[in-house]
């Protein structure tokens, strides 16, 4: 079963971290990726650029319009994600707890939909 581990970032909290603590977060991601590769549970991951770099696209009456900035202004934003493939939802929770950001922001664990299905 695949899960998306969503890293929610609150920048005001992140800014309170010391230089050493931030460095530990980056190193923690390297270690987490290494661990996931070794267990055979890593499907993919990405770290996202600052929301200020976001462009939002809307298509109205067939005409696309592009604006700068995110769709919703919020205190938290999506900072990155991991896609893992693991045996149980409990294991997905364990993996989420290993993400360094979990200790000061929050990680959401969402099941990924499957493309197959059975007759009902």
């Amino acid at each position, binding site marked *: 079963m695949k899960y998306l581990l969503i890293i929610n970032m609150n920048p005001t909290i992140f800014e309170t971290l010391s230089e050493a603590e931030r460095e530990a977060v980056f190193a923690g991601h390297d270690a987490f990726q290494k661990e996931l590769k070794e267990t055979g549970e890593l499907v*993919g991951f990405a770290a996202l650029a600052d929301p200020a770099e976001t462009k939002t696209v809307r298509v109205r009456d067939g005409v696309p319009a592009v604006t700068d900035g995110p769709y919703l202004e919020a205190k938290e934003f999506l900072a990155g994600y991991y896609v893992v493939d693991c*045996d149980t939802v409990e294991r997905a929770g364990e993996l989420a707890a290993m993400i360094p950001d979990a200790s000061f922001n929050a990680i959401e664990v969402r099941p990924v939909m499957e*493309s*197959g299905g*059975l007759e009902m």
Partner: protein
Amino acid sequence: MTGRDGVEDLLRGLVPQVLGVVARRFGDFDEAEDAVQEALLAAALQWPEQGVPDNPRAWLITVASRRLTDQIRSESARRRREEAVAAMTPADELVASGPADPSGVDHDDTLTLLLLCCHPALSPPSQIALTLRAVGGLTTAEIAGAFLVPEATMAQRISRAKQRIRSAGSTFAPPPPAELPERMRVVLHVLYLIFNEGYAATSGPDLQRSELTGEAIRLVRVLRRLLPEDGEIAGLLALMLLTDARRVARTGPEGELIPLAEQDRDRWNAQELREGIELITETLAVARLGPYQVQAAIAVVHAEAARADQTDWKQILSLYQLLQQLAPNPMVTLNQAVALAMVRGPQAGLAMLDTLADDDRVAGHHRIDAVRAHLLEMAGDQEAARSAYRLASKRTTSLPERRYLEARAGRLPAS
């Protein structure tokens, strides 16, 4: 000259025999499995170009053994094993022109291999991956493609599965006789899961995955040849054939799911149905009864109805009651509730569903809500049916199922 597909079929059939010989000779399942996989890749490249060797099995054993020997020699830390290799027959002598292994131990090897790959220390996804590679002869890339994970991830998963078998103390040898029935049950369950993975695939990018049904059927056929007296192996094969017969009819042109009652039965595969019916009929007459046989018998009752409204639900109900005795399980109760509703009306079915309300094994499972929705619709309670369809739709993690459930909800008039 044999074509690429011909070579692939030939290789797949030879894998368990080759791996059996190499694993026994070198006493290390993990490394033998890697070496055989490399030999298979070499053969898949060379044979279509240069022709199939006179004795393909001996060729594969030789190439795999040579790789293993080279590897062991190059790792000085493994001196202990090197000594063991030195005492063995030189690999080149294996390329004898006569029949490679007259001892006829192939049969046991394939079975031993299946039992090892379905080791109870492994999780089902690992059992599936290892079985597909070591017994089925699929490449890591093919297995990764079927399960939509990167190849490196799948390679790592397979390698860890083999390490876990090793740390559980298992070597390439049959389990003690006392453990055999339970271990065989796991093997059949893994093959059943492989089949279901393929059967659940609907369209487009899932095509590679849909080939898993064929692979599962092939492996059960191999198992049946080894143990022709086993009623549950025959039952599982019949169940797979009878289910696979509906494969084309179960999805529409857009990949949408079509329920059993609405399938175009002319599109069911007549040949698979015939084989499945014959097989389960013969088996039920002689073998000790088991859950796969009963499930196959239920599939036969569906298959024998020319139209959905001609289904003999009374017979299906009594078969589910039998199944409930043999292998009690909330999913069986769920199906039994449907059969009961068809025989005695939706209220009886709904009452049976209520008995599952406190069952932790299925709490919050979307299939319960989906069945409740169908039964409520049958009972004419459209409002409640709509809510139940929507709840099931929220709870499923399958895209085609969600589409189907949303469509059912949408069909009911809003209040």
